[in-house]
């Protein structure tokens, strides 16, 4: 089965090659090429899994099932479209003098390594390696956040490093506890941390140890998901780094972290029965939705505002997975997909808008539609999509989550609606002013890359109107796995 090694080897090779030649004139194309190759490998792998079902590879060190293959495909796809966007965006930044060839070298190389760490985290079967990959994902992005070397970006990167480092250390302690519980059942050695092995014996794991382990794991990986009150690093890192990085952080890294939480939740549910892990997820999820919505309405910087919106949506997903059951989990997965696509599309449009007006402050961005209709409409449509307007995919998933919540947890519904409503009012008002009105924007030296924006919005639209049968099947299988 050479597909999986290929999938991991491609971004790794790309990272090494770009570490040498990442500053050259053609480097953005090489970057996009490697991302495309990774996407093709991921697509081939997906087809294989749909046909033949879950597999384990390399002495069970890696495994692919419907849950992670769906995220692998999503990750590879968004990584590719972001590479297309970054091709133009970073050239403009170079032109504006914010980047130098040396920094481009660092940027391109780390972009590929970052893709690698996410794919590794998704495909590994070993919970220890999952931790290592999550930590490596922080390490590869921390220098990207500070790549402009402005005081604000350095501060954001330092915060990102320290907070995520401390957070993820808690997850390591959780992993150690999990291993302690595992080797009582499975015996010591490398096999005891394999998720598939643990899943097979999850009913026999010692409940006291697992409950403590899950709390630590949730705190650790939850920091990377951006759950309130562990979210402090997220808006800064999103706002101060280059926009393609904001797009992949929001669209992909947060998903991968949530995926890690879900894997742990399955084990915790097995050992403790439903309820404990789910209750924690519901609590953190609701808190994130409400707090993020109120903080969001006070932002002045456009990227910060959408970063808070990401926290809010991660909260919605966490809540959905906490509810459990096939329907809520299905909706959570759908929300994950739609949010990734729409949020990265928004960041693409925001990136170009900020370049055109030379500012990220929302009051300085006016009348995008008059100077560049595509950027303006891209932002407007993306915003409508992320706010959960029909007929986009976010509407479908939020509707499902709300109706399930109404049945299973009636008291939570008003809180959710409050969060979504506050966010709607705040974002809608702001974006309206930015898109229409008289303009301050100027022309860019390179034509903006808008294909990724509309490709993402197109897919999100399709998800809202019609989910193809194979995709539905795939979601159902994944939901079955985590929701029971």
């Amino acid at each position, binding site marked *: 089965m050479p597909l999986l090694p290929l999938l991991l080897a491609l971004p790794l090779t790309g990272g090494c090659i770009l570490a040498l030649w990442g500053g050259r004139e053609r480097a953005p194309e090489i970057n996009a090429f490697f991302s495309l190759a990774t996407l093709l490998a991921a697509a081939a792998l997906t087809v294989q899994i749909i046909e033949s079902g879950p597999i384990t590879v390399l002495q069970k060190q890696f495994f692919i099932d419907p849950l992670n293959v769906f995220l692998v495909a999503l990750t590879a796809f968004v990584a590719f479209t972001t590479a297309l966007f970054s091709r133009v965006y970073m050239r403009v930044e170079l032109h504006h003098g914010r980047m130098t060839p040396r920094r481009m070298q660092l940027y391109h190389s780390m972009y590929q390594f970052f893709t690698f760490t996410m794919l590794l985290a998704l495909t590994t079967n070993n919970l*220890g390696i999952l931790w*290592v990959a999550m930590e490596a994902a922080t390490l590869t992005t*921390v220098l990207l956040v500070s790549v402009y070397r402005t005081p604000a970006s350095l*501060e954001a990167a330092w915060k990102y490093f320290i907070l995520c*480092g*401390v957070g993820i*250390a808690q997850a390591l302690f959780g992993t150690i506890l999990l291993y302690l519980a595992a080797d009582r059942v499975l015996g010591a050695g490398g096999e005891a941390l394999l998720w598939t092995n643990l899943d097979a014996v999850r009913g026999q794991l010692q409940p006291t140890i697992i409950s403590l382990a899950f709390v630590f794991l949730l705190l650790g990986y939850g920091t990377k998901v951006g759950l309130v009150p562990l979210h*402090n690093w997220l808006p800064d890192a999103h706002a*101060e780094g280059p926009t393609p990085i904001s797009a992949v952080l929001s669209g992909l890294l947060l998903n991968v972290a949530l995926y890690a939480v879900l894997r742990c939740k399955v084990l915790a549910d097995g050992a403790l029965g439903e309820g404990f892990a789910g209750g924690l997820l519901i609590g953190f999820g609701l808190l994130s939705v409400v707090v993020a919505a109120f903080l969001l309405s006070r932002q002045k910087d456009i990227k910060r505002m959408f970063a808070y919106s990401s926290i809010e949506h991660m909260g919605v997903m966490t809540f959905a997975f906490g509810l459990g059951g096939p329907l809520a989990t299905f909706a959570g997965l759908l929300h994950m997909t739609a949010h990734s696509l729409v949020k990265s599309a928004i960041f693409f449009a925001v990136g170009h808008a900020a370049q055109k007006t030379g500012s990220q402050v929302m009051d300085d961005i006016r009348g995008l539609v008059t100077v560049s209709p595509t950027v303006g409409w891209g932002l407007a449509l993306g915003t409508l999509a992320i706010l959960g307007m029909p007929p986009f995919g976010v509407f479908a998933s939020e509707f499902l989550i709300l109706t399930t919540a109404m049945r299973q947890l009636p008291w939570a519904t008003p809180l959710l609606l409050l969060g979504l409503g506050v966010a709607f009012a705040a974002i809608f008002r702001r974006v309206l002013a930015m898109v229409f009105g008289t303009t301050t924007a100027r022309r860019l030296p390179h034509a903006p890359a808008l294909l990724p924006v509309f490709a993402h919005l197109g897919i999100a639209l399709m998800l809202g109107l019609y989910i193809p049968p194979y995709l539905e099947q795939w979601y159902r299988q994944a939901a079955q796995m985590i929701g029971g």
Partner: protein
Amino acid sequence: MTPLYSQILNLLAALMLILAFAMLSQRRILSLIHLFTLQGLTVVCATALVAYITRQPELYYSAALTLVLKVFLIPWLLHRLIQRLRVQWDLETLINIPTLMLVGIVLVIIAFNLAAPIAQLAISIARGALGIALACVLLSFMMMITRAKAVPQVIGFLAMENALFFAATSATYGMPMMVELGIALDVLVGMLILGVFLFQIREQFDSLDIHHLEKLKED
């Protein structure tokens, strides 16, 4: 398992805890690095001892890895770093060390309470060690919060990693080798990135004071 070995291990665990408290109250950066090196050495001794008791060759590799990384390589990098940044004689003003110690003691009690039900179940040699390891993690965490300079924060971060390694050794006879290698790689790369980062901060702000890094506020 003879009680002697178990006692030595408990002694090492106690040493870890004392070192964690010493680091919490140490104001001189150079001494902080020495304490960190000692802490690494303690982890190495504990790992080697557990390896000897349980006769697991993997743990000897783990001990050797920790020795190279935590006792030689990282302290050496830190020494070079503070020399090049010219902060080796820096003193930090710590607010109210007695209060810090008292809060530390409360943390230790909390850690022991959290770990108690699990320590009952651990098959391992030193039952108290897990609680101590958790206490060390929390103390390093507190050290990071209370420090205003970047280098001590980094050392706090690394000390936390040490405590986690100690937890892994004492509670589970160490993690699988591949995982430990991965963690070691992450720590090393992280250390290098932090080094680069400190220079960038210094260049930008002319100081390594973290108070400069508090412009981005929630508003």
